[in-house]
């Protein structure tokens, strides 16, 4: 059974069809890239999967269970986490707290727990801190744990978003343009990071414009254009695909 599967997924905004009957299948332990020119509908696919938008029609199945009609927090609780294209960190919280918010849905403490603070709650908090620090070490932000999130430089903010998303203990991680605004060194580190995430048993679906990243780490590519899936396959095959070159890669030097 596929980990994530969409069947004839469509989303209309008024008269505009942002995505049109898209079928996507993601298998467990893959790294899949969703690529396409601006406005192709890539982020809309993410928004539909994570429950921010309710699709106009079509089906989204995660481990065989429908995600359509669920609120974003319910989708996260089922094991799908994401980052945002335009970084959406909690700016008034520390780096550590940002990651701890990510594990919100894996924690249980209620009002009584917060006020009376029994042993179980103290333990839960300590575990959450330990896990958050572990994730910060994983994305190389450990020594900035006490900074305010908005004080971080751009590349660090992107990696913090990844750590925050991973704190919800996902099986499927959706990354929306993780390399945007990163310098070459940071981009290399990011590629390594994404591989390490996969090694942790997390399936990665990413939207990316940076061809080096896309071609370097993807097991499979899915190409969208004007809301329609125009190609799908291994990076080498996509590189040669005339439809894709016409729609998108024609203007770029591949593998630069």
């Amino acid at each position, binding site marked *: 059974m596929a980990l994530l599967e969409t069947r004839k997924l469509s989303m209309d905004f008024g008269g505009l069809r942002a995505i049109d009957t898209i079928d996507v299948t993601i298998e467990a332990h893959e790294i899949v890239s969703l690529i396409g020119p601006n406005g192709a509908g890539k982020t809309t696919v993410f928004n539909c999967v994570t429950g921010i938008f309710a699709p106009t029609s079509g089906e989204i199945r995660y481990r065989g269970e429908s995600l359509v009609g669920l609120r974003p927090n319910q989708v996260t609780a089922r094991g799908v986490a994401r980052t945002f294209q335009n970084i*959406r960190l909690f700016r008034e*919280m520390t780096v550590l707290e940002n990651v701890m*918010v990510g594990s919100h849905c894996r924690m249980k403490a209620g*009002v009584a727990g917060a006020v009376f603070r029994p042993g179980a709650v103290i333990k839960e908090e300590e575990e959450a801190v330990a896990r958050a620090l572990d994730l910060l070490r994983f994305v190389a932000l450990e*020594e900035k744990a006490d*900074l305010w999130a908005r004080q971080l430089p751009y590349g660090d903010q992107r990696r913090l978003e990844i750590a925050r998303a991973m704190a919800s203990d996902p099986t499927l991680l959706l990354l929306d343009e993780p390399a945007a605004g990163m310098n070459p060194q940071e981009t290399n580190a990011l590629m390594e990071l994404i591989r390490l995430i996969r090694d942790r048993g997390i399936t990665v679906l990413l939207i990316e414009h940076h061809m080096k990243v896309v071609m370097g780490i993807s097991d499979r590519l899915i190409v969208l254009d004007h809301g329609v899936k125009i190609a799908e396959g291994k990076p080498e095959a996509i590189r040669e695909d005339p439809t894709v070159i016409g729609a998108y890669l024609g203007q770029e030097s591949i593998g630069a």
Partner: protein
Amino acid sequence: MRTPSRSMPLRQRPLLRIVLASLWFGLLSLPLMMELQAPYFGLGRPLMVSVVVGLVGLLWWLASQWSERLRHVVARVVDTGGSHVRQLAEGPGRRLLYALALACAVLIPLGLNRYYIDVLTQVGMYVTLALGLNIVVGLAGLLDLGYIAFYAVGAYTYGLLSTRIGLSFWEVLPLGALLAAIFGVLLGIPVLRLRGDYLAIVTLGFGEMIRITLNNWDSLTRGPNGIIGIARPKIWGFTFSNPIHYYYLIVAIVLLTIFVVDRLNRSRIGRAWTAMRDDEVAAEVMGIDLMKTKLLAFGLGATWAGLAGVFFAGKMTFISPESFTFFESVIILCMVVLGGMGSVPGVILGAALLVILPEMMRQFALYRMLIFGGAMVMMMVLRPQGLIASPRRAIALRREDQARSAVVKPASERLGLPSRGERKRGTP
């Protein structure tokens, strides 16, 4: 006629700006100026009004010229003070400090007369109210302009249950808090989808609804006449009669409030509130149930207003809808904003200032509210984040220097990132 101001930004035309601001102020304050029976120093009324208006314009211009520098100075003074307080409050001697503060709170009133004790009791009541509103506005970021309604719910719960059924103060105290919490949640349900201005307007409407209902439901609440003869609190045959008894009772309530609000703030729920305040969409995607979290904020915020309301009814033995006007909601909101949204010590300071200062300014009588309003405006211009900024922010800022000097851990090398030193050299 050609208007040169169109082509040139107003900021580059200070004179025009003073004139416009003065005229506008004069227009706004015209009704007030015409009513005042103030001394005119021998000048005619129109002349005097013009002089005042001109002076205000000049002041405003000066303030705008100096606001940047002034803000900086204010920030330095307040932050230095704040960081000393914080170091004391988090240092090794903090238990001693808390004990000392408590001892002051217990002992000082023994040497004061009834009037001062009464003012301090008021401070306690408003601290409780402001800390409750701080949950909704400061932590969860939901602008609530009808907060006083929950105070009314608490007060009328005790008023009615005491005079009609004869329930005691101690029985009603938790009941009033619970009922206020339920009202908080009930208000929360219809406004779940609203944000910002819209939320403020709906909550404002809700506050007025409660007050108008209390004012008109004669058979239950006796309308504008209010409820009289509410029983004073009793404990083991001892009746609360002296102001100092009420003072100690409110100290206990304030301690409970501080304890609970602080624990909530430092819990999973507090993090969820702050996250929701910062970015609702991101918070929901991170797995926070917005509906539940918002209702919790409304309910837990209203609880403290309910408690304060029961206390108020027990202390005054008389309540009427007059005590629960929109203006009260605004004052409590001012306490939260002035003190520093989300910051417990800040809100306590804000509440204390806004109760004590108007009392001290009683000699200015008519001008009291004018001075008060002016002070609020100055405050917001010079220190928009409040007197004592939220500790979340403060901790982050305080540790910045430490983190800067920290040695880069090997973790960054594993990912092939340059250490901070290398990166600095790399950038011109």
